[in-house]
């Protein structure tokens, strides 16, 4: 069938053939059923396959910029989901730890002692040993088998008065201290580790090396500095009497302790907090404490909020 069309004639429905019907059909303006009427069956199938082949050809020829964007988007989504999962896992882990701690507490086997800001806490252990915790410190031990193995975990600072008996071990992040019956002070925070022996004999294990301390001896490791050994002639650490003493300690650690004693925040960004400080500060009077630390170092301080201070030169 062959019909002529006029340029002026509009194409109504599909009854009027278009001379260039293939161009209409490939655009989708002519139905398959109509094309079937215009060509042989073989031709129809051929055109069908050709149309599909052209579709594939064109798709494979397309620039892939949108594909790349999509890939970036999917990678980003995966990271977001992974981060979300991590947050989930972290919070679940935190919850688990909390419950474990709680459960342990209820079980009465594990004991946790914590001191808060500016607080000193005295703890009596099962064997009559005595521990005094300085501010913001934590002591943890298990009641089970205490007689045979006396072991505690410490973070922060504590003064120990250990009854003579089996080996008594203090475990900290920075190393372990073992004694048989003595009095000693341990201070262990992130990068500050100091053990002072006041009585008896103390064995410190740090980085797989062993150090024996006699009375007045001490072991100190601050951050990456070499190990120091100072002599302390007192009978007891001064902080147990309300005064913190420092000998050649980087200011940053004194600042940390001020924060723990007075429950404040001190911003030291503008100053050099690794300058060495020797001196002491009072636990109970903050302005006095500030005077003895900051005035001595030639520093000024400004109060910006109820408990925030900024240091300046």
């Amino acid at each position, binding site marked *: 069938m062959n019909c002529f069309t006029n*340029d002026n004639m509009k194409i109504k429905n599909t009854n009027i053939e*278009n*001379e*260039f*019907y*293939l*161009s*209409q059909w*490939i*655009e989708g303006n002519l139905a398959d059923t109509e094309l079937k009427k215009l060509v042989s*069956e*073989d*031709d*129809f*199938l*051929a*055109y*069908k*396959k*050709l*149309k*599909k*082949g*052209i*579709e*594939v*050809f*064109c*798709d*494979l*020829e*397309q620039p*892939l910029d949108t*594909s*790349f964007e*999509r*890939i970036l988007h*999917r*990678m980003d989504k*995966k990271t977001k989901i992974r981060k979300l999962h991590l947050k989930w896992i972290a919070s679940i882990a935190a919850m688990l730890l909390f419950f474990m701690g709680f459960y342990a507490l209820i079980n009465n086997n594990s004991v946790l002692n914590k001191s808060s800001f500016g607080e000193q806490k005295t703890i009596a252990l099962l064997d009559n040993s005595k521990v005094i915790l300085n501010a913001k410190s934590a002591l943890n031990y298990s009641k089970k088998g205490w007689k045979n193995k006396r072991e505690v975990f410490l973070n922060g600072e504590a003064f120990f008065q250990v009854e003579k008996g089996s080996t008594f071990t203090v475990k900290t992040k920075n190393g372990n201290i073992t004694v048989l019956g003595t009095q000693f002070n341990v201070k262990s925070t992130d990068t500050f580790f100091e053990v002072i022996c006041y009585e008896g004999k103390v064995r410190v294990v740090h980085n797989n090396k062993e150090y024996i301390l006699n009375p007045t001896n001490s072991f100190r490791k601050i951050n990456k500095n070499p190990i120091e050994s100072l002599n302390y002639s007192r009978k007891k650490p001064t902080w147990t009497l309300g005064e913190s003493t420092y000998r050649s300690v980087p200011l940053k650690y004194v600042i940390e302790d001020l924060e723990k004693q007075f429950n404040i925040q001190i911003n030291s960004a503008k100053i050099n907090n690794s300058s060495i400080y020797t001196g002491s500060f009072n636990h109970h009077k903050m302005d006095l404490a500030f005077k003895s630390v900051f005035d001595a170092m030639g520093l000024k301080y400004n109060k910006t909020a109820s408990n925030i201070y900024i240091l300046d030169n």
Partner: protein
Amino acid sequence: MDNDLKNICKPKNFKFIFKTYAKDLKRFLYFKFNDLETAEDVMQDAFIKLWKNCDRVSFETAKSYLFTVGNNLFINIKKHEQVIRKNKYRHTKNTTNESPEFLLIEKEFLTKIENAIADLSPKQREVFLLSRIEKKKYREIAILLDISVKAVEKRMHGALLKMRKITDLNS
């Protein structure tokens, strides 16, 4: 420093690898799956996997890595769909004038199409590419080439008539 240049974890290098191999990979995958959407998805999957392992794949072996990953994904998906595909194939055999989704486009056929396009007259090819690849309407092409719509249609019709010859369904 030389290592730096070849590190796929650098976005610049990753993008370069994409621009170099994405098209070929998609094409490769199309002939495996015979489906454009799946080929696109799996191609993306392969690149995402490359990015995840960017510190373990060297610049030189990126291409074979991509194609291996793509192939493995194909094998896994195929196993999963084996039964369904068998049914599809049987269906096509019995009913040749049924829906064309089941018509397989072979590699050779695609090559024939490419050759046929190259054999078109320049005027026909121009209209053909503008319409099919650039997705322009005949009206737009007419304005672009400064000819009548009818002239555009005539060229497209002629192109398709010519290309019809490459199809031979007497297998």
